[in-house]
């Protein structure tokens, strides 16, 4: 292993780990804000208890999301300094905007929300959780605009030996960025939906606080159904733009080798990168891929063989990640639909309630698969078509990266274990007894 490989591994560890916490932050902040708004509107104490119960779980999750986010900003400088110097003009600005426009708001008002129950009026207090929720989502916007620029660089000029900004609006309004943003949000909202559904199911099955968890369940069921539908419909648009913006990624995720028209979509395949073909290939939808990528059965789709092997991403993991992510999305839709249809008599559907808690990890998995597809599918580029990952790494010593990588494994394993233990503990404990008692 060299500095490059270890730095990539370290970035992967830090990003996968960070993204175990981000989606729940994005989604649950919205759900808690909706619950508190219901409390302000109806005065129903149950909604206040819901706000506090789900809010506590939100905070436990939030703590680790925040601190592990700092790692990512640091790593561009520590491990990818050549990248930072080359594209900082654009990429660094986007991160700085995220800090000033969103991260401040989020970090300041999360404390106001937590400590301010007695200091603010009911309405103002509800406003603070909306500020947190909106700020988290704005924060995601800027980060994803930055990532989208790595996927599909626009609005730049090569000057002074680096990429310099030439059109700011092009960078922040490009279709790729908007699609990536809403797709990531959809996944995050589904994660929160399943989290609330699964936790509520666990309690409903034990006839614990039935009214409380039924209310939570109903909100989450509608929420999950909406975003499962959204995610599938919208995800299709992402595939379409890949055909234009990142043809090698699209070809890898479909294990598509030969450029052509009327390209079928193989529902089942097993790519063999060495021999540039698929060992297995069946259940083909005629012209399916052409139709999906170009809206025309005769549309041309570039195959991997059009690109030198050194410019292709690793096909098998990209292909499998995509397949698994899409499969999960349809499962989410089925679960969301069933949960919503049966929401009124959900306590009697014990089989379904028994399964639901076990489904909580699946959106997490889908999120990580999505990032695997996005990041691994971009390789060997760190900025698609502009800079190779191998040219981006810092001039640092192997021992430095080796040591920090071990430290990341240890510290993150500890944090992950503690945080999931606490989430589990407080999710099972349930809400404080009514009427709300302040701890």
């Amino acid at each position, binding site marked *: 292993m060299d500095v490059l490989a270890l730095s990539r591994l370290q970035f992967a560890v830090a990003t996968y780990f960070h993204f175990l916490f981000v989606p729940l932050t994005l989604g649950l902040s919205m759900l808690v804000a909706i619950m508190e708004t219901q409390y302000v509107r109806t005065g129903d104490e149950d909604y206040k208890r819901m706000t506090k119960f789900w809010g506590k779980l939100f905070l436990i999750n*939030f703590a680790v999301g925040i601190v592990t986010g700092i790692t990512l900003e640091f790593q561009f400088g520590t491990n990818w300094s050549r990248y930072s110097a080359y594209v900082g003009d654009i990429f*660094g600005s986007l*991160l700085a905007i995220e800090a000033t426009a969103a991260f401040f708001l989020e970090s300041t008002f999360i404390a106001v929300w937590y400590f301010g129950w007695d200091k603010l009026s009911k309405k103002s207090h509800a406003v603070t959780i909306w500020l947190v929720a909106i700020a988290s989502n704005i924060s995601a916007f800027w980060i994803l605009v930055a990532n989208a620029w790595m996927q599909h660089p626009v609005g730049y000029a090569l000057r002074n030996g680096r990429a310099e900004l030439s059109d700011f609006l092009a960078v922040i309004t490009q279709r790729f960025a908007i699609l990536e943003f809403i797709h990531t949000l959809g996944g995050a909202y589904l994660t929160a939906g399943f989290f609330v559904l699964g936790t509520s199911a666990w309690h409903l099955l034990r006839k614990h606080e039935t009214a409380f968890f039924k209310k939570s369940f109903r909100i989450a069921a509608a929420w999950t159904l909406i975003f499962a539908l959204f995610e599938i419909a919208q995800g299709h648009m992402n595939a379409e733009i890949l055909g234009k913006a990142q043809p090698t990624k699209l070809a890898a995720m479909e294990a598509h080798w030969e450029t052509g028209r009327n390209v079928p979509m193989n529902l089942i395949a097993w790519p063999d990168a060495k021999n540039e073909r698929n060992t297995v290939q069946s259940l083909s939808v005629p012209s399916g891929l052409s139709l999906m990528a170009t809206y025309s059965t005769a549309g041309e789709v570039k195959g991997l063989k059009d690109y030198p092997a050194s410019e292709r991403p690793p096909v098998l993991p990209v292909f499998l990640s995509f397949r698994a992510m899409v499969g999960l999305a349809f499962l989410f839709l089925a679960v969301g639909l069933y949960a919503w249809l049966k929401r009124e008599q959900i306590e009697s559907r014990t089989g379904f309630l028994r399964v639901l808690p076990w489904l909580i990890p699946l959106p997490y998995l889908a999120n990580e698969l999505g990032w695997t597809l996005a990041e691994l599918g971009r390789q060997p580029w760190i900025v698609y078509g502009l800079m190779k990952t191998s040219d981006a790494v810092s001039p*640092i010593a192997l021992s430095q990266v080796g040591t920090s990588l071990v430290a990341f494994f240890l510290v993150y394993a500890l944090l992950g274990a503690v945080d999931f233990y606490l989430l589990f503990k407080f999710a099972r404990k349930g809400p404080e007894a009514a009427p709300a008692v302040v701890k």
Partner: protein
Amino acid sequence: MLETIWFVIWGVAWAVYFMLDGFDLGLGTLFPFLAKNETEKRILVNAMGPFWDGNEVWLITAGGVTFAAFPRAYAIMFSGLYTPLMLLLFALILRGVAFEFRGKEDSQAWRATWDTCLVVGSFLPALLLGVAFANIFAGLPLDAAGIFHGNLFTLLNPYGLLGGVLFVLIFAVHGALWLTTRTEGELQARAGRFATSLWLVEAVVAVAFLAMTWFSTRLWQNVLAKPLLLVLPLLAVAGLLSLRVFAAKGAWWKAWFASSALILGAVLFGVAGLFPNLLPSSLDPAASVTAFNAASSPLTLKIMLGVVLCFLPVVIGYQLWVYLKFRDTVTAESVSRGPAY
């Protein structure tokens, strides 16, 4: 011109960060000495509870400003100081979760574990940032390609270490003073005693550091060349002296503001003395990373200036509001009633 404006923003972001996060890092460092029992520990943690997270974003912003306005400086600083920055990162990670975790389990060992993370995670950033900035003032072993010729131990030279000790002391006094403004009774009195007795050490180390700065860096020469800038070290000295006067009178808020003036004056003195260097090279002055040879394109600098001018006043506004909203005294009764960490 744009580069100079951004250099000032860069320096101010660091100064504000040290002024704000300084008190909660200092309070975390003094945690085992100031708090004698679980109630006092909770009071101490909650005295910084509503603020520490918002304060820390100033660090992210200072880093973000460096990345956006001076990407080459960001790249060289973060890769060159790899090990100290990783230590800083892990310290901040463990410290951040300690706030949330410490009260979540009813066990002595559990709380002791997270309290240790809080203390180490507060002390280490203060020390590391002090060592890092002192070394930056003195110059880093950078070649023309921006490669750092050294390791962690290169930074642990006498001047660097004295800088680290100075930061720890300044933050500790700043934190103890903060506690006096938010508490009452025995805990307030103890924090006051700590602030006044640590002040003496702080003053001695500060004088020694300023003297060594004359020999180890070019800060004084640069500042003396523009005598108007002397107002910055004078502000620091005035802050240091008036801090002691106010503390003797028990005027704690005034003492805390004096301590803030000390931090702002000292950091801005360092920054002004560096100009136009961001990372002076100790190997070859021509290899120094400056606000001019590391800057982003004029377009980026202009857009980011617009962003900063739009958002930072708003940020300062709502952070001030939060400080005013949560200025009441933290007591045993208020932490047991909650909401509290």
